């Protein structure tokens, strides 16, 4: 997965459901060591970043207050996807899972990094609405 592939999957897998939750894609940064895209709503910001050399993927949900975003190291205000999964994934119903899989049917992935990015998009789509509604 190179920077362009990252952007394609961000557009195809993340944008549709985040748009439905009131987020707009506002920043994109592609450099060799760091691909990042962020989405902002009035009260939150979602950052999806990938470090190609280390093969590390990060999804974080920031809180926004007066235009300032929460501290990245404060996991109570800036949960990572793993935190949201552990909080909410158990409450996801089988109907929600089936509907979720269908929502991503058209997204094509070509290698293991792209598959991982798609997997986190699917997870985020399941747990983010529960977090925002909590």
């Amino acid at each position: 997965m190179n920077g362009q592939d990252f952007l394609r999957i961000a557009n195809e897998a993340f944008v549709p459901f985040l748009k439905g939750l009131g987020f707009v894609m506002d920043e994109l940064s592609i450099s060799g060591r760091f691909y990042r895209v962020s989405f902002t709503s009035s009260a939150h910001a979602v950052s999806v970043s990938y470090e190609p050399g280390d093969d590390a993927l990060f999804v974080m949900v920031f809180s926004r207050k007066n235009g300032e975003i929460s501290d990245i190291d404060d996991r109570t205000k800036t949960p990572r996807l793993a935190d949201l999964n552990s909080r909410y994934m158990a409450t996801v119903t089988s109907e929600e899972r089936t509907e979720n899989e269908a929502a991503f049917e058209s997204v094509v992935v070509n290698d293991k990094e792209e598959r991982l990015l798609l997997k986190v998009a699917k997870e985020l789509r399941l747990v983010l609405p529960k977090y925002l509604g909590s």
Partner: protein
Amino acid sequence: MSRLLCVLLTLLFSLSGPAMGANSGFADSSLAAKGPVVNGETMAQVEQAAAKIPGSKILNDIPDFRSMGNADQVTSSMMQYNRKWILEQMRSGRQIIDIGADANRATPSIFYQMEQNMLKNYQKLHPEFSGAVTP
């Protein structure tokens, strides 16, 4: 054996100070007046920390080597670029702010480990170099 010697000599010269690097353009003392360099393990954290420090600089200009070869070549090119970059920053006279490792990270960054080693070794060879500061 001679290859190993060559690599060691290259490393020694590359870590050497302004006298050897005088023509490299890295030793421009006017850069000392510019903002600090921010480094750390996870780039999202580095980016957020740098956003709070006016004039700061981070490593955000590596070419996207992913489009240019297989996995080993990509890692090698990135490592080479990153190593040269951190060396330039140490020679530049800019203050280096190390925001540290990411305790939440599943696997340590090989790039951050390399930067830590470079900083440590550079300081051994150049005792006048103050090293990285933590925020």
